[in-house]
């Protein structure tokens, strides 16, 4: 209970621009998400993957508890957690890349086919570009975190922000142009 309360308080503080709180929030969420992922996998009979979306929902339920928290609150949470999830995925990609070299290791992915080492590198660059974008238009960066890294649909993101699906999609398309520019510039060295 105590640590759960703290997480919510951290979100509040981070929103007020408290930098140490934001850092603390990041690492708290990071370990919370990892813990949950491990636990979920252990809990199931079969070793199957769990989607980031599911993981975030579970994390939210655990942290916010059953009572009284609003969807507006949930949206704020998802915004932060999505950024953390990105970190988790990037780390995993690096890690996986290392493991792959070592031997046989199967990966399952949801949509498809980002499967090679170059992609892992690209993922890191996208992440860096996203951090840049977040400085200029944080809302755009958040949409990419939610959509690309966490697998929320445009409709779900729209519902979180009280805008229509099409608006989210447009913002995302815009962000994509930005990211592609950044990533390509990097790649063209």
């Amino acid at each position, binding site marked *: 209970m105590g640590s759960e309360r703290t997480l919510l308080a951290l979100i509040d503080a981070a929103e007020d621009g408290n930098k140490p709180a934001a850092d603390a929030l990041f690492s708290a969420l990071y370990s919370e998400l990892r813990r949950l*992922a491990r636990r*979920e*996998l252990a809990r*199931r*009979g*079969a*070793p*199957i*993957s*769990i*989607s*980031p979306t*599911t*993981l975030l*929902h*579970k994390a939210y*339920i655990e942290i916010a508890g059953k009572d009284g928290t*609003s*969807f*507006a609150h*949930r949206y704020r949470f998802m915004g932060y957690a999505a950024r953390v999830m990105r970190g*988790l*995925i990037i*780390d*995993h*990609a690096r890690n996986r890349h290392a493991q792959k070299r070592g031997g046989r*290791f*199967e*990966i*399952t*992915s*949801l*949509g*498809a*086919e*980002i*499967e090679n080492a170059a992609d892992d590198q690209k993922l890191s660059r*996208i992440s860096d570009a996203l951090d*840049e974008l977040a*400085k*200029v*238009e944080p*809302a755009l960066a958040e949409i990419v975190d939610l959509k*690309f*890294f966490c697998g929320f649909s445009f409709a779900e993101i729209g519902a979180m*922000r*009280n*805008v*229509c699906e*099409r*608006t989210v999609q447009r913002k995302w*398309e*815009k962000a*994509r*142009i*930005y*990211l592609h520019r950044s990533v*390509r*510039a990097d790649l*063209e060295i």
Partner: protein
Amino acid sequence: MSAFSSHRWQEISPYLDHALSLSDEARADWLATFRAERSDLADVLEKLLEEHRELAQEHFLEYQPAQPNAEPSLTGDTLGAYKLISHIGEGGMGNVWLAERIDGRFERRVAVKFLHLAMASQGVAERFKREGRILGQLAHPHIAELIDAGVTLKGEPYLVLEYVRGNQIDEYCDERTLGVDARIELFLDVLSAVAHAHTNLVIHRDIKPSNVLVSSEGDVKLLDFGIAKLLADDASSAAATILTLQGGGAMTPLFAAPEQMTGGAITTATDVYSLGVLLYLLLTGSHPAGPGPRSAANLVKAITETDPPIASQAVASWEETACAEKRGVTPDKLRRRLRGDLDTIVAKALKKSPRERYASVTALADDLRRHLRDEPISARPDTFAYRAAKFVRRNRTAAALSTLALILTIAGVTATLLQARMVRKQRDLAFRERDRAHLITEFMSGMFKVSDPSEARGKTITAREILDTASKSIDTGLAKDPETQAQLMGVMGNVYESLGLYPSAQPLLEQAVDIQRQVLGPKNPETLKSMSDLVSLLDVEGHYAEAEKLERETLDIRRHVLGPEDPESLTSMSQLAWALAQEGRYAEAEKLDREVLASQRRVLGPEHPTTLKTTDDLATVLTNEGRYSESEGLQREVLGIERRVLGPEHPGTLLTINNLTWNLELEGRYAEAEKFEHEALDVERRVLGPEHPDTLRTNGNLAITLSGEGHYAEAERIEREVLSISRRVLGPEHPDTARTLYNLACLAALQGRRDEALSLLREAVDHGLRPFVYLQVEKDPDLKSLHGDPRFGAFVAYAKNRAAAGSKQN
């Protein structure tokens, strides 16, 4: 150009936003125009948009990267006769794997779905397998076949399903910009599948877009039939099941029926409701509960208590242009397309009470097919008056519930209005909407405070009290945002009007018009809409001269902005004609009505409710001109069509009956009139309640008929009853209340009670009797017994003076 500097990006970003919101064609046009202004930026934008097209083709960033928690997969594992090939998805209920048979009996690939549920005991597992096999017998071209059900050695239940490749039905429709007809056709396939399952006594229980897939060839497949039940039997209550079943936990049951939320009986009507939500979504692009964000508690409330906005209104609440584009039409066309039949059909499927919904999926399908063939549908529309009457009735039995529903309705309408505005104010949306939402929330919670037990201990709160409190605080409460303030005032004014509380409605509507004229300008559609609302109110209040003046302004603007034959312009014209008729200017009214009618017959068709209403208005004018048989001919014609098209309970049908009986009475055909009046009264008492202004009107007319037949005592009894209700419901100054006084005066005169008759006449004139009634007082045969009485002569002079003074005032 490579990565953006933040300065560069900030410069480009808004233009990019705009360009991306346009269709390809419009984008090229816009870019050409823009180039004239900023050729430097236009070049950059063009390049970026080209890049956008390429990125879309590449599906850049469209697929999620590999998951962080991927463990050694099941690939290659076998499960009974199936070998797992690859993980293809994770739904609310569990993981899905692509698999194929290994015993070589079939070539076909299947989907294996693992359910997030541990089977507690061997018995449960057995039952799961047994029921799975029953479901497996559902064979229908639009139902994804359930091939097998089992439990792994580790106790994890799984289903083997027909492998379906396809898109969710809503995404499929949007991607192909299917029009409304094509969407309905596709939806009919869904209905045929559900109907088939129902005849086999299987209820789906979880119909939602992600369970309805459409292949690229356009084949519909329903997934997960009866699976909710398979799992539900294990849980303690229906509501708990739905809530836990949905997704990785926190998903709220957007497609659940009210009875699923409240733990009521799950029947085929439950599927009818979910199908209604799906249809609403396909047609309007939005969910009946409106867009998020919402708390789970609010969603439950929305599902169980709030009537959703009718479908055609919901179009406005989305980003209407994008939504309409996906259906290949303009927003206006889409709204018009949905208005009427489709509104009615969707509303009937979405009734809170299962009994009020379509009796079967087939009945819903039949109505949709009738609609596609342009035949009259079986469902009857809810009019706003009907809904409002329901509020009033419910008020008496369960005040709290009704109050909440009313407030939620207001809140819902507000949300709709806000959404509509978002379209226009895309740019500064992010901050302003948040502020606005905050303001509204604050204001609404202020409204709710009244129902706080500490503020109203032991007292029953009525909808009216809530409105009264809110209307007092709206001046100050929302002063910071006049646009929202005006909209809320308009909404509240209309609610007051529909409750028959005209004196409270007027200042709100007037203020709304004033504010909107200032803030939005006099030509803004919302300003015009508020002006029209005010005119309707002035008409029912009997302030015809004011109504006429305002309506002429509205009409001028609409003709100018929309053109003379636009339905809105025509509505303005017929409202004007009505006001003129009420002032006794029949020839002008008749001419206008005939003009409107000719246009409406051409533009809307002869059987359109609006055309019928105008015909009815014209007939009433003819009655007033003494052209009874001409009027009767029109009225009977209209009535025949209305009974067929609108149904016997529709207010339009009842109004025609009312006008026809009046016409009959004036011809002295009392028996015929009485028969019609009893028929209308039966319906109105049942549908509107005994105190609704329309019910009172018919009651009063029945009394006149009875009086014409010489049944004075009975007539008087009815009129006195009507009078006491009118004073309370309409107010002592309402023209209809005054008319009842006048009718009582006539009855007194007819029975030789002259003193009483004279004092009642005076009272009627002093309390708002319509001039056209008292100016003809000398010609009224019912008052014959007063002729020759000097006091009657004095009264006539008094009345004429008053009328003259009144018209000078205007």
